Structures are given as C-alpha cells and as structure tokens.
C-alpha cells in the first residue's frame, strides 16, 4: 500500500512514526481484551473472531462486557453495533480525505477505527494522511490480533490486566489523540460540552450510547456554529477559518 516505493521517506514520515507508536500502544492493549474476553466466558476462537472480524476495540469490549454482566447475546450485539456507529462517521471522513477506489475501499473500511482515523486527520498533507491511515490501520490490525491471542492464551497467568495499567494506557491514548485538536476556544468548548454530556449520560443509558450522545451534541454545535459564522458573527474564534479562506464563499 504505502510501503515499498520509498522506504527511507517512510521512515522519516511523521505520520508513519505516530502510526507506528500508536500501533504498538493499541496493539498491546489487545492483551487486555483477550484476557478479559476469556475471563468473561468466551472461548479462544470466539475471542479471536471478535478481534479479526469485528475489529473495533470499543465495540469488542462492549460485547464481552454485556455478556460478562449477565446480558443476552442480543443486548451484547446491540451495544456493540451502537458503539460502532461512529465508525460510519469515520468512514465518511476517510473517504473525503483519501478517496480510496475499487477494492481498497473495502479494505480501508475494515481498518476504519478511532486510531487510524485520528492519525490521518491529524495530518494536513494528503500523502501523510494516507501513510498515517494505512500504517495505523494495518499495524493495529496485526498487533491487536497477535496480542488478543496472547491475552486469551495467557490471561490466567497474567492476572488482572488492570494491574499493568492497560486501562490507563487507553485513557492516555485517547487524550493524546484529542490534545492536538484543542487549538482555540471552539474546540475546547466542544470537548468540554461533550465530556459533560458523556458523564451525564453514563448512568442512564447502556454503555456505548454515551459516546453517541456526545457525537450528537458535537454535531449540533458544529451545525449551528457554522451557521453563525455564515452570518459573520465571531469569525475570530473559528479554528477552521484558515481552511475556509481558501475556498471563498459567494452566498454572503
């Protein structure tokens, strides 16, 4: 995909480096999934099928979490599907960014997850976006599955994955992905509003759904803050102003 043509350039690429460290960090976290899945009563192959075919960490944890809590298969499937809805939004973003054609589209859909999308959208150069997306997507797929197997096989020997702070690694990784986007007032306001919406939603809706509540809140803010800018109010707080200047608008 991205490798082969210019290995030296690839090694120097910032997106490649970010994607690689993200692959290792996220891949390692697969140990935690494998161990928890087996501890929740899933067998080795059920655990592996979730990592190979479902391949979306949040949805996988939701699935096994519901079953571990005594929930039914339908409930587990529903929680997993709801949590996976954001990947549809990521698909739109990656499609807009990279426009993969033919079979690549079907492959890129499978590796469209939080980390690959975040790596790509953190870059501005289209080549870097492409390198970041594919390196993170494929790198995480390979390592996530290897470490899921390790966790499933060694789960009991390892003890509680929390003891290794693997859940803390996930918190840190998501904050690190969010951090570079918090430039200016609007992104901070959106992040704060969505964090609050999430905390308020957690006790009242099944796990996975608070993330969608936050997505809706962010979507509404985005929709209306854009309308406000069309009217020329508060243009100076718009973090996307630079981008928009390149495409002059005629509807004013």
């Amino acid at each position, binding site marked *: 995909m991205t490798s082969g043509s210019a290995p030296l350039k690839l090694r120097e690429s910032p997106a490649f480096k970010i994607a690689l*460290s993200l692959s290792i960090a996220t891949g390692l976290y697969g140990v935690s999934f494998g161990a928890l899945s087996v501890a929740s009563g899933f067998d080795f192959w*059920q655990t592996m*099928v*979730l990592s190979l075919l*479902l391949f*979306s960490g*949040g*949805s996988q944890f939701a699935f096994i*979490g519901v079953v571990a*809590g005594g929930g039914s*298969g339908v409930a*587990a*499937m529903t929680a*997993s*599907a709801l949590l996976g809805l954001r*990947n*549809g939004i990521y*698909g*739109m*973003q990656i*499609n*807009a960014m990279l426009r993969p054609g033919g079979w690549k*589209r*079907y492959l890129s*859909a499978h590796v469209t997850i*939080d980390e690959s*999308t*975040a790596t790509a959208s953190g870059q501005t150069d289209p080549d870097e976006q492409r390198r970041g997306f594919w390196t993170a997507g494929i790198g995480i797929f390979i390592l996530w599955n290897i470490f899921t197997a390790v966790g499933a096989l060694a789960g009991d020997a390892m003890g509680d994955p*929390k*003891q*290794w*702070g693997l859940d*803390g*690694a*996930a*918190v*840190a*990784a*998501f*904050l690190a992905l969010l951090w570079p*986007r918090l430039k200016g007032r609007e992104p901070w306001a959106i*992040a*704060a*509003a*969505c*964090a609050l919406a*999430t905390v308020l939603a*957690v006790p009242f809706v*099944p796990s996975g759904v*608070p993330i969608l*509540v*936050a*997505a809706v*809140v*962010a*979507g509404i803010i*985005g929709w209306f*803050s*854009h309308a406000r800018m069309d009217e020329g109010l508060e243009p100076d707080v718009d973090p996307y102003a630079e981008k928009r200047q390149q*495409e002059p608008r005629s509807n004013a």
Partner: protein
Amino acid sequence: MNLWLWILIACGLAYLTKLLGYFVPAKLLESPRIMHVAGTMTIGLLASLTVVNAVASGQALVLDARIGALAAAALALWLRAPFLVVVISGAAAAALLRLLGWG
C-alpha cells in the same frame, strides 16, 4: 452456539457500518458545513472516549486509578512528550496507583 450467532451478526454490522460511510455521496462531503460538523464530531467523540475510558465502569461513574492516568497523560502532553511516552505515562500512573492500593 447461540452466542456464536450474535458474535457473527455483530461482526457483520460492524463492517457494514464502516463501509456505509464510504458510500455517502461525495457531494455531501464537499459542503463546508458538513465538513465543519465532521470536524466538531471528531473532537466530541475523542473527548467522550477519553471520559468514558477514564470514569465509566459499565453504567456507573467511578473515580479510580484511571484518573491518575488521565492526569499523568495531561502532564506529559503539556510537556510535549511524544505519543508513546504519553501512553506509557498513563499506564505507569494507573499501575503505580494500584500498587499503592488505590483504585
């Protein structure tokens, strides 16, 4: 066997959801408003994922070692540490706090 069925349905739905995003008409994506919404949604989703991973435990809100991980990661980011260092700081903080008997 029944569980296998739901696992496979969940896998199918997960892939179809991802793929569906790729078949949204290109025209829609060229709208500046939609792109702006996509940008705000990314921020919202990442903020939400951070919070869920830090304080949610099923449907309960819990303050445990993960808060330490969040603080350590924020500090590392503020010091402009590279991504992997941030992640390791988070893991180390959570592991250390648990070793000390908290959360």
